[in-house]
């Protein structure tokens, strides 16, 4: 069956374990939906071009740019934002590693890095990631604090 929307379209998804049913404009990005409609402002919006990675979220466990998805595209899916990472094993270790290495200055990019790491349950090496720099290259730190972020992520194993 063809779904056509000129004005509003429904979205029915699970966000951070909570069922969400809403009516949105088709052009509303997932990042705007999360921030403006659900109040989940931990998902940051840097560039809206898919470059910076601050808006990374998990959709069905896969890390994607929420600024490049329309909210309606997560209909029937499970979305996890940085606020919902508590349920993913390893978050506490990642937090400790980031704090120990001072892997943030302004913190704007931190949700993006944490969500990227959440995709591999905060254990990139175990998940088969052989090149950490390449893995982390999808998220930009505007303070350019990459060395400390890399050090923190190396601690995770």
């Amino acid at each position, binding site marked *: 069956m*063809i779904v*056509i*929307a000129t004005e509003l379209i429904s979205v029915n998804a699970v966000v951070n374990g909570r069922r969400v049913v809403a009516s949105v404009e088709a052009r509303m990005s997932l990042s705007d939906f999360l921030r403006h409609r659900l109040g989940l402002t931990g998902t940051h919006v840097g560039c809206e*071009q898919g470059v910076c990675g601050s808006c*990374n979220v998990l959709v069905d466990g896969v890390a*994607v740019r929420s600024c490049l998805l*329309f909210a309606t595209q997560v209909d029937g899916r499970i979305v996890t934002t940085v606020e919902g990472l508590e349920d993913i094993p390893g978050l506490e270790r990642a937090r400790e590693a980031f704090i120990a290495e001072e892997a943030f200055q302004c913190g704007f990019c931190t949700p993006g890095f944490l969500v990227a790491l959440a995709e591999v349950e905060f254990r990139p090496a175990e998940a088969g990631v052989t090149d950490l720099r390449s893995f982390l*290259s*999808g*998220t930009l730190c505007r303070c350019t604090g990459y060395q400390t972020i890399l050090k923190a992520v190396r601690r995770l194993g």
Partner: protein
Amino acid sequence: MKPARFRYVRPASLDEAVDLLAEHGPDAAVLAGGQSLVPLMNQRLRCPAALIDLNFVTELNGRDDGEASLVIGALVRQRELESDGALGRAEPLLAEASRFVGNRQVRNRGTLVGSLAFADPAAEYPAVLVALGATATARSVRGEREISCANVATGAFSCSLAADELITSVRVPKAGARRGSAYTEVAERRGARALAGAAAVVELESDGSVSSCRVVLVGVSDVPLQVGGLDRLRGQPIPTDEEIRELLTAWSNEIPVRPDRRADPRYKRALAAEMSIRALRRAAGRARRLAG
């Protein structure tokens, strides 16, 4: 910035999708991974009247890793092609090139077929598909046709598909026992647009002589640029490094290069030669090892 308003259309089958494309034609944009399209929409560089979202068309999710060829559907994500992805072992050249494509989150969503149809001159996959001799299947209400991937791009960001057509899959012929391949690239940063890259595929005869050899450049011309003059290698032993260098340096002096504010034409030609040389040498070496 936010995209302009559009009519969102979500077909549930391929037949519905091509019907919609026939109806909306040139005013429509087709959405698969959206990793190139949506940034353009967000910047309002593209304002399609209708957006046809293919993501719920399960027929396009197909993949078939057969004996003769590898078929990859329009919704198969680039991430699957990486060496540790679901299709990572199916075609080593796709896996090797994937390391240079965007970043993991983009590859989680972006598709191989979308990259082919988008025809970005700096994109890795279109050149890799040309080097592999792959074909694309295009579908419209008028029927289905096969296009050589070498004939998909007609210029920078333009392709030979009609307004009512979409690519449903690509078919990559399987490597023979003595085929080696390699991809190499130079960019300013990891995942940034290629200044120049090269995909090479070398096939050997049982006696170790070259049976076929193809090198295709990324980011040099408006379309994937096949290195010329390699036919003369056929039937010959694998050329030495010096011979490769001589052949490709001479060729690169003649090629048209695309204007690039990051690299003047002289530098671009030098990069084109160097990338070709490296890719060809590595591919030939791998073919030789496989031939044992």
